[in-house]
């Protein structure tokens, strides 16, 4: 009974909860609220975010968060393959929109942030990662970008800020010959971005649990295959495991 519940819950997480979470991130990642008009502004993901999302997907594969070979294969039912591919697509767009939510919309800061993301993700491609370290690294990356964009920059360019903030913003603008031109949004935009990033990280953590849940399946497969062997072969396998130099 518990095995049935486990498999039902697993299916619910894999095929409903995770795609829904990632699609919500895709919806909210490009949402801003105008500072004066208080109306919605939907910003489609810039091209650079698609590149960043691709690098993130590669990182997820390297970090063991996404295991294509286990989730998509000729031995799995077609519907399961389609559902898993659909989930990968939702993760890709959620990643693009998560980057979109923390990237300044235009000006020099847009390119500075893009470069900062590209550099970090590119370097990470050559580091050794496990799922936990990858999640920690991504959380820190997004948290830093969030603080820089939605707290520091928003405060510098806020029309509601005090004279000191406005003076600092104007000075910064003057020193960079106006290349720091950035958009100002209502404070609620920051809350939306925070919620979006929290959902994205929560989705990735849930995904990590789902991936770790695969381990018993692999173990069961191994045990099943072991049971198919002859007595002599079983003995050889046992000896090989016992004599494994890594143990």
């Amino acid at each position, binding site marked *: 009974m518990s095995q*049935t519940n486990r*498999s*039902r819950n697993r*299916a*619910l997480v*894999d*095929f*409903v909860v995770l*795609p*829904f979470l990632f*699609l919500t991130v*895709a*919806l909210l990642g*490009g949402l801003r609220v105008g500072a004066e*008009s208080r*109306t*919605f*502004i*939907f910003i*489609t993901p810039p091209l650079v975010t698609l590149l960043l999302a691709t690098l993130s997907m590669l990182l997820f594969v390297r970090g063991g968060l996404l295991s294509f070979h286990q989730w998509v294969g000729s031995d799995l039912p077609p*519907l*399961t393959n*389609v*559902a898993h591919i*659909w989930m990968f697509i*939702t993760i890709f767009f959620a990643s693009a929109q998560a980057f979109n939510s923390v990237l300044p919309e235009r000006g020099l800061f847009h390119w500075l942030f893009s470069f900062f993301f590209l550099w970090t993700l590119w370097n990470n491609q050559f580091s050794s990662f496990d799922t936990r370290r990858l999640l920690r690294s991504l959380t820190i990356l997004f948290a830093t970008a969030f603080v820089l964009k939605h707290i520091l920059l928003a405060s510098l360019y806020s029309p509601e800020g005090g004279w000191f903030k406005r003076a600092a913003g104007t000075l910064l603008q003057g020193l960079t010959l106006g290349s720091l031109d950035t958009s100002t949004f209502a404070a609620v935009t920051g809350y939306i971005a925070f919620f979006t990033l929290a959902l994205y990280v929560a989705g990735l953590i849930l995904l990590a649990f789902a991936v770790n849940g695969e381990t018993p399946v692999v173990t069961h497969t191994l045990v099943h295959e072991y049971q198919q062997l002859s007595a002599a072969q079983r003995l050889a396998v046992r000896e090989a495991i016992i004599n494994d130099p890594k143990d």
Partner: protein
Amino acid sequence: MQTKIIQVAGLIFTIVYAAFIVWIYATEPRTFKEVTTGAEVAAGTYEINQGNFNSALSLFRHEQFRAARDEWQRADPAQRDARTQFYIAYSFYREGWGRVYFDQELFKQGVEAVNRAIDLSSASTLTIDDPDLHIHTAAELKAELEQGLERNWSDVNPLKVLRTRK
């Protein structure tokens, strides 16, 4: 079996949700009201606000064209009603019409509105049966507005002050 049902239901639900997200980004609604109006249009249940329409018509007959247009825009926020768009175009025509010259900006906006009306009309020719109007079809109104935008030698004809507004 239940896992399969969850898979199918999950796929359908999330694909519908993804289509909604694509629709949101394509239409870029600015308020929740616009989201609901857009959804009504997509579902085919959209109707104009008749109260606003009637009050706009009354303002139009009293030559209060800007106020009339505001009311019509409130009556048809999604700009999906051919009749309302026709009246909006007509209000641009009447406000922009002058004995000596036509207001080019208003006439341009009139052409945009009448084009919307033509695009929206299911019938081949959009006809409005209103005895207070001199132009009853969208095609005629469009021609009148486009003529007003053209520049030619007849513009310097002093007799043009004798022409009448339709």
